[in-house]
C-alpha cells in the first residue's frame, strides 16, 4: 500500500460519496489508482495517443460501473482489473498480436512503436564500473543502466507483472486478481521473467566487453 493510499478515506466511504454525485471523491479515487492504471496501460499499449484514449475509457467505465462494485476486493484492485480487461479488449479489437519480445504488430506488419516520452522519461544512471567479470559488474551500478532494456525485452504481460510486484509493491494475490490468473500462474510468470531479465543483463554486459 502506497503512502498516498494510507491517508485515503476507506473505499466504502469514497464509493458512497461518488454515488451521491461528488466528483471530488472520484478525483481522489483516480489519483490513488493513477499509478496502477498508468503501469497497466503503459506496459500493454505502445501508442501514446491510444494510451490517453484508453485511460479516459477506463476511468469512465469505472465511474459507470461503480454502483456494481461489491467490495469483494480493494477498490484499487477492481480498477486495475478494469484497466487490464479494457486494454485486452482494445488489443483484440485492433487485432494486435503479441509477436514475442515485448512488441506488438498488426495484420499489416506495421509496428506500433513509440517511446512514450510524455509518459516516461528515460532513466540514465551515471557511473560504469570496470570489474573483470560481467556477473561481478552486475553487482555494481551497471545493472541500473540496463534494467529498462532488460524489462522491455520481456513480453508485455511479464513486464506488467514485474512492475506491479517490484515497483507498485503489490502482492501475488492482488496481482492475480487484476490479471485474472491463478496465483501459481502469476508466480510462474514472475519467475521466468526475472530469470530472463538476469540472463539478458549478463549477456548484455558480456557483449559490451567484446
Amino acid at each position: 500500500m502506497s503512502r498516498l493510499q494510507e491517508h485515503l478515506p476507506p473505499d466504502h466511504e469514497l464509493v458512497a460519496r461518488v454515488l451521491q454525485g461528488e466528483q471530488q471523491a472520484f478525483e481522489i479515487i483516480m489519483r490513488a489508482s493513477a499509478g496502477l492504471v498508468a503501469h497497466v496501460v503503459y506496459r500493454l499499449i505502445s501508442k501514446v495517443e491510444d494510451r490517453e484514449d484508453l485511460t479516459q475509457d477506463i476511468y469512465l467505465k469505472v465511474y459507470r460501473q461503480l454502483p456494481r462494485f461489491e467490495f469483494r476486493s480493494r477498490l484499487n484492485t477492481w480498477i486495475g482489473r478494469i484497466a487490464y480487461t479494457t486494454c485486452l479488449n482494445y488489443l483484440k479489437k485492433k487485432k494486435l498480436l503479441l509477436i514475442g519480445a515485448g512488441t506488438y504488430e498488426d495484420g499489416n506488419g506495421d509496428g506500433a512503436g513509440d517511446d512514450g516520452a510524455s509518459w516516461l522519461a528515460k532513466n540514465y544512471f551515471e557511473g560504469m564500473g570496470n570489474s573483470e567479470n560481467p556477473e561481478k559488474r552486475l553487482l555494481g551500478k551497471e545493472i541500473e543502466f540496463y534494467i529498462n532494456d532488460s524489462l522491455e525485452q520481456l513480453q508485455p504481460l511479464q513486464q506488467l507483472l514485474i512492475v506491479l510486484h517490484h515497483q507498485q509493491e503489490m502482492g501475488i494475490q492482488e496481482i492475480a486478481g487484476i490479471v485474472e490468473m491463478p496465483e501459481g500462474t502469476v508466480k510462474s510468470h514472475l519467475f521466468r521473467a526475472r530469470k530472463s531479465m538476469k540472463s539478458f543483463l549478463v549477456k548484455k554486459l558480456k557483449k559490451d566487453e567484446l
Partner: protein
Amino acid sequence: MIEEMHIPDQQLQEWANGQTGFDVDQKEHLSNCEYCQQQLAIYKNMYSSLKKMEQPVIPGALLQKIIRQLPSGEPVKVRLHRNDLVIIGLMIIMVLIPILYFNNSIKEYLSVARGISFQMCIITILGAAVFYLCTLLIDQPKTSAGKHQKM
C-alpha cells in the same frame, strides 16, 4: 551433496525478495559458493534497480479532462449489465418451465380450452428465450477506445 549443486534460481529469487529463507545446508552452501552469492546479489541489485526506475504517470491534464466528462453533481445510477439480463432470463425460464409442465390446469387450459398444443407452446417459449439470450451474448459490449477527442 548440497555443496555440488547450486541453489535453485527460484529460491534465490524469493530469498532476494525477502519471501523465504534458506535451510541450514543452503546457508552453508551460500557462504562457500561464489557463484550462488553472485546470483543472489544480481537478483537483489535487480530488484532495487527496478524500484529506482522512473515510473509512468498519467498527466494531470488528462485526469482533469476525465473529470470534466463526468456528469456534475448527479448521483450515479445503477444500470443493469447485459450479463444480469442473461442471468435473469435463465432464472425466469428455469422457474416457468416446471410450472407450465407440472401444472395440469394450465396444460388443460392451453390444450383443451384453447386448442393449442402444449408441446408447441413450450418449444416456442424455449426457442424465443434461447434466441433472445443468443442475441445478448453475441452483442457483447465493445470498448469505446478512440471515441474520445485526442489531446
